[in-house]
């Protein structure tokens, strides 16, 4: 039986042509899977106790994270602030994008925010070089609650007046955005057709 050798150029040409046919088949399936993973990430974020407490603003009192008052007031947000929405909007921008077809390979890339991007978008109200989002995981000073004193120009109304109570709440650091992002990345790594 004679052996047939197909030239490499021909194999490449076939692979390239095949990839063009494969892409329309693969892309919708990948997009569907990515959409599910992304929705799960947003759901994890929305359902996280920190997110939920911050969304309830000063009504989340008692808090699971600070020993007195609300987490929202502890950080020192203003009543009109919607800190979690900023994070959600950035997470929502995560996307799956087609890159190219080369040597028979169809390339896609997943775009998602880094922790550093998220931290720089979430400044503390009283020290804008610090991130409250990072502080949730690494510890956060209780300065915000004192600056948010119960006065006419009170901002969130959830603070503790310093002259009457200087031994106010303490914050317990907790896993938050890192865990959500890590779970997301793990699922992206396992994406398969």
């Amino acid at each position: 039986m004679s052996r047939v050798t197909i030239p490499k150029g021909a194999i490449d040409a076939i692979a390239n042509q095949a990839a063009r046919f494969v892409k329309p088949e693969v892309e919708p399936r990948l997009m569907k899977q990515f959409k599910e993973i992304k929705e799960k990430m947003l759901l994890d974020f929305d359902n996280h106790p920190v997110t939920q407490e911050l969304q309830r603003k000063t009504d989340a009192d008692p808090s699971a994270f600070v020993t007195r008052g609300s987490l929202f007031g502890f950080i020192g947000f203003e009543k009109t602030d919607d800190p979690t929405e900023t994070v959600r909007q950035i997470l929502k921008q995560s996307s799956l994008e087609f890159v190219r077809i080369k040597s028979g390979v169809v390339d896609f890339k997943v775009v998602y925010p880094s922790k550093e991007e998220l931290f720089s978008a979430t400044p503390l109200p009283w020290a804008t070089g610090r991130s409250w989002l990072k502080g949730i995981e690494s510890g956060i000073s209780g300065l915000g609650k004192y600056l948010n004193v119960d006065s006419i120009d009170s901002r969130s109304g959830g603070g503790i007046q310093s002259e009457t109570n200087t031994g106010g709440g303490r914050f317990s650091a907790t896993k938050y955005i890192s865990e959500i992002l890590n779970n997301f990345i793990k699922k992206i790594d396992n994406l398969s057709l």
Partner: protein
Amino acid sequence: MKPQFQHTLVTSFYLWFDNYLQKYGEAYKNKTGIFYNMTDDRLDSTYNVYSSPYKQFIFDSGLHSGVVNSQGTEGAIVLDRISGQRADGSAFEVTRGTSGLHIDYENGRVFFTGDPDSSPAGKLPGNDLSLSGQFAVKDFNIYVTNQTEEDLVIENKFKTNDRFGNLETSGIVPYDQVLPAIFITSESIKNKPFAFGGLDVTQTNVKAVVMTSDLYCLDCVLSLAADAQKRSFAEVGFDSFPTTEFGDIKSATESYHVDTYPTGYSYNQIENDNTSDLFHIEEVNVSKLSDRVKKKVNPNIFVGFIDFEIHKYRRPRG
């Protein structure tokens, strides 16, 4: 208990940061000043205490050589003698270690048993002797604290010493913390596996609160701190901290100290001697208390925050 990693880290960081500000920021002023008689209940009554209007004094003699600062002198002057004039006009001088002269660099003062050559011997300044010395004062005092940021900023009852503008006519009270100052605290510590064989990277968050009445100086410190990212600094043992319980440099005559500095303390020398055991500053984040909220605290004080993430590769389990 024996000193642990945490103690070594804080000691090393304190000495490095102090030197870093002085070396790269020239954060000191050379002064010639009078020492005033003071009382201190915490000390034995045999000590006669004379305090300058300023604290903290620089005790790092390594800053002196080869440095030309903006004042035209060659670096920071480390106080090592006091001098004066007797009522009869004759001059006297006492060097550190003689006549019981201790220098409390931390509190800007000296302990002195009297003029050895006076008649009668041991006459004390304050009666008919004047007492003065040359010293460098830090632009920023550095304190290790366990107070929280809110305690420091909200409850601040610190004396703001406008030490370079006013004519001071009395000594400064010992032990009080005086602004401008930097308060450092080691907040959290975490070991993460790094390599086979039990090598971990120990990540420590050291936080510093900078408080001053001068915005220019605050910006200087924050800028210098930000530039410290990716630098390394030498490990200095807890027992090797250069000053005694009196705030003086450990001398060889005090045999109970583990490490002494018989020829003076020089951080440059420590750096040269410790090139292998290093701490690494992985990340620095600086921030200022915003003006909007600063008014609610103390409008005359500017506050900055520095967050250092310090890494050390070590084998914590053996």
